[in-house]
């Protein structure tokens, strides 16, 4: 498939566990974004990569959240010591061009449930 792929589709974690969420962007896309979508809400920006450089992490809610994109393609969002308030859908989006441009393609997300 040519779309943005995210895995796992669902993740259940016990409070205090660490989790890692994966995003495979569309091949060749320069920009990659992570968003958090709480139930019944719109997506909230977490962080932005241009190739392997993390240019904006202003939306990460705490230092328990960490994202990387070491080779400028696949990205991983890691959440340490998960809390119940971390329960949400985590969306990844990519775009061909650099910057916060207009054509974002979203994956189907990872639904994280922290018990």
């Amino acid at each position, binding site marked *: 498939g040519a779309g*943005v792929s995210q895995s796992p589709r669902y993740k259940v974690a016990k409070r205090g566990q660490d989790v890692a969420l994966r995003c495979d962007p569309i091949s060749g896309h320069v920009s990659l974004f992570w968003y958090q979508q709480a139930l019944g809400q*719109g997506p909230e920006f977490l962080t932005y990569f241009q190739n392997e450089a993390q240019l904006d992490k202003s939306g990460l809610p705490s230092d328990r959240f960490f994202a990387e994109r070491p080779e400028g393609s696949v990205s991983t969002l890691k959440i340490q010591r998960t809390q119940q308030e971390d329960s949400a859908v985590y969306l990844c989006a990519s775009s061909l061009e650099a910057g916060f441009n207009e054509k974002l393609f979203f994956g189907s997300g990872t639904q994280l449930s922290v018990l």
Partner: protein
Amino acid sequence: QQQVKQSPQSLIVQKGGISIINCAYENTAFDYFPWYQQFPGKGPALLIAIRPDVSEKKEGRFTISFNKSAKQFSLHIMDSQPGDSATYFCAARTRKLSFGAGTTVTVRA
């Protein structure tokens, strides 16, 4: 703090009717206003977008109306179809996209 306020939270429309969703913003630095459509279990998909120098944009059955002075914009879905049943998000961009809270549209056959 939500930078884009969206209403209504949900609406029900009969097949063939018009769905209208409204959004308001305060930040005059926003330079691009897209609408996204999201089906259950899927990520948002870009539906239609407008820039603030244009008052209206139409693509098929979907129209954006933009009122720069009032800092409001709206999505009109004409001849609504059951396949349009989804959640719609307005958004606005400065350096990043800020989304509204969403409107769940249900089209009754």
